[in-house]
């Protein structure tokens, strides 16, 4: 029992952390007549590296040790975060609407080793593509958020989680602040009415 207790924080044991979206958007910009636009969000994993983890524990020499994984699907987490902010702006979420594809490009926290303390450096990057019913691309943009937490003593899941959640919040806030995206989505309402 004592050995197990001591090994609980071992660099060789995989860390599992639940990741959440903590919004940094204080007052969402509600667009007039946004409720006339229905959005259908989906997501795909386009990460080139580290698809099976969100970070790695490291030892004092910076060597990668055990994985740090998320207990929930981070691709769905990013999609849900974007969906939440667009819904807060007044858009309707449902099937058969304007297709928004969230393409996750990176969701990783890289610990940096210092002389005495370490630093958690998280990067969350994703692309967002808006298409009409014919599949034509209406809007496309990449969003990226980074967070750095200095002076950490342990390169473990809790510190990775804190940095990743902040990075996610920054990236998604860019979506919420993207006036061109709102304009593109609202423009689909005009197109649909012309089409009708």
């Amino acid at each position, binding site marked *: 029992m004592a050995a197990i207790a001591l090994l609980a924080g071992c660099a060789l044991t995989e860390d599992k952390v639940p990741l959440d979206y903590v919004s940094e958007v204080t007052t969402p910009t509600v667009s007039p007549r946004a409720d006339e636009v229905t959005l259908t969000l989906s997501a795909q994993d386009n990460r080139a590296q580290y698809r099976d983890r969100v970070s790695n524990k490291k030892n004092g020499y910076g060597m990668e040790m055990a994985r740090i994984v998320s207990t929930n699907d981070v691709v769905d987490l990013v999609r849900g975060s974007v969906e939440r902010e667009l819904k807060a702006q007044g858009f309707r979420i449902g099937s058969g609407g304007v297709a928004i594809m969230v393409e996750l490009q*990176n969701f990783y926290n890289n610990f940096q080793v210092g002389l005495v303390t370490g630093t958690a450096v998280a990067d969350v990057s994703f692309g967002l593509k808006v298409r009409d019913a*014919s599949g034509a691309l209406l809007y496309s943009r990449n969003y990226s958020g980074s967070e750095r937490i200095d002076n950490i003593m342990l390169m473990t899941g809790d510190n990775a989680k804190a940095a990743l959640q902040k990075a996610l919040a920054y990236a998604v806030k860019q979506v919420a602040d993207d006036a061109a995206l709102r304009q593109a989505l609202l423009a689909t309402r005009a197109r649909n009415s012309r089409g009708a």
Partner: protein
Amino acid sequence: MARLFIFLSGAIALAAVGGGCASISTGTSQAISVDSSPTEADCTLTREGQLLGTIKTPGPVTVKRDSRTIHIVCTKEGYEEGKVVLNSRLESATMGNLLVGGAIGLMVDSASGASNKYDAQVTVPLVPRAGAQATTPLPDAVPANSTVAPVAAPVTPNAATEAPVVSPSVTPVSGQSRSRL
């Protein structure tokens, strides 16, 4: 006492000479071979919004080793913009400091960036544009530090901003990004 002094002096001298195993053996920069599928795409490499280089694929780009992520954005006529993010990994040569160099070597490698490395080869997949409007060329992607973004907005110095690509019927009005790095 004299022997101890000689031994310690020798150890310190050895550490100083061998300090920074990775800095000496692998250097502080590396080449990344960037390819795309299909080839002949224009790719831009940025790190925290700073332009590292541009290239037409396939081809190598030499970058300074660092712990920060590199964002590679590729554009090609008739294809949607493709993007890949590269995280740095530990350069295995740094482990040589366990034998020679010790803490001094680790500090040297860490400070020079030599303790990090990126994947030597990366391929950026590009998806053909679909739909009726796809035949109309969309504006090319604009590098993060470019001054010709569609409409200027306040950008933080380290922000990894990328200009939006919008169909002709929509006017882009924002290019804001945010980063705390």
